[in-house]
């Protein structure tokens, strides 16, 4: 474990997925999926609906246990970790849920305070308030502090969810379809916000999407998830020029 950790720092690989497989009954969703993520990089995983993108990202954060394969984050293999160790990794890895997953019985402020619960002995209420305000300002929604999630529009909810993810200043952010269900203009705003945050905090981003705008604007590298595998990868320009029929389908 130790030597591996050193290696990762040297090569700057923050996330390494090797031969990840997962099936639900007879439905094999991921088949030996491989992926590596460098620190500060922004990678988009592109795949059609039902191809197992959400399953992949939930395996990374430890919500789904894979059948085979390893997922190393900062040198720790996620499926091997116990609850406390996993929790420490999760504090450094932000997750933006496809459905936002805002707690709808809580106000925006309480939603943002929730991830800070794990430090409630260490930080004062004043610091908490400051962190909440800062995170909301980052997404441009400081005025919604005491509103309920139900009172917000879809785009605003996405921003609040993003603020909740940002509040712990994660080193890696996993975005599960950040623009699904939003109109083109709002999607663009969200993507711009993601790029801005990426540059401001030097985070590593893994973005799952089938939105072409998102791929074009936010990706330094694109990975195609087809048939449960990492089918092709390259920059946006390389991918759109691909002659492979399965890849071409996405760009018609």
């Amino acid at each position: 474990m130790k030597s591996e950790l050193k290696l990762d720092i040297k090569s700057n690989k923050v996330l390494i997925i090797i031969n990840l497989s997962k099936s639900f009954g007879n439905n094999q969703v991921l088949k030996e999926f491989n992926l590596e993520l460098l620190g500060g990089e922004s990678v988009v995983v592109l795949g059609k609906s039902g191809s197992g993108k959400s399953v992949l990202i939930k395996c990374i954060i430890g919500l789904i246990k894979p059948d085979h394969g390893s997922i190393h984050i900062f040198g720790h293999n996620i499926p091997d970790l116990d609850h406390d160790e996993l929790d420490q990794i999760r504090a450094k890895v932000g997750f933006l849920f496809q459905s936002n997953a805002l707690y709808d019985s809580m106000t925006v402020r309480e939603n943002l305070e929730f991830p800070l619960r794990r430090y409630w002995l260490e930080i004062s209420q004043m610091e908490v308030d400051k962190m909440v305000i800062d995170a909301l300002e980052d997404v441009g929604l400081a005025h919604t502090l005491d509103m309920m999630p139900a009172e917000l529009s879809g785009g605003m909810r996405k921003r609040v969810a993003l603020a909740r993810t940002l509040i712990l200043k994660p080193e890696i952010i996993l975005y599960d379809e950040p623009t699904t269900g939003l109109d083109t203009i709002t999607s663009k705003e969200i993507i711009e916000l993601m790029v801005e945050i990426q540059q401001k905090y030097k985070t590593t981003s893994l973005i799952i999407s089938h939105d072409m705008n998102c791929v074009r604007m936010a990706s330094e590298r694109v990975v195609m998830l087809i048939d449960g595998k990492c089918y092709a990868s390259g920059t946006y320009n390389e991918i759109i020029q691909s002659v492979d029929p399965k890849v071409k389908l996405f760009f018609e």
Partner: protein
Amino acid sequence: MIFAGKIGSSIGAELGSMKVTEQIDAMEVSGTNPFKYLVATRVLACTLMLPVLVMLGDSISLYGAYLGVNIHTNTSFILYWTQVFDNLVFGDVLPAFTKSFFFGFAVGIIGCYKGYNSSKGTEGVGRSANSAVVVSSVSIFVIDLLAVQVTDILGY
């Protein structure tokens, strides 16, 4: 039974919808044990509050009975209550009171279980709320049955 219907279904539906909208997963990711945070609190609340509710219900019904008696005869309020407490024996109250803890616990835990394990989609929420009511009502019958046996054995 009414408690089972009202509380069981609301817990089932609440946790069910939190499950399908990934709020429970989100808690897990934010380092809060959703089981402790959501389930333990609700089960505890049900277990402790149902007995209180039962006592409240009993007092109201006794007071109602007093009003009924008062219509026909002119019994004084104090006389009625001394009569009531004289006639109530320990064996009437204690088993009923103890039982209500178990009822509360059962309703709480079943509601939570059904909600927590509800299947994907909005109809999963409806189904878990519905089955929470059915299962907790049945379990109340079963617990009551057992409770009668136990009080019999203990000789109350």
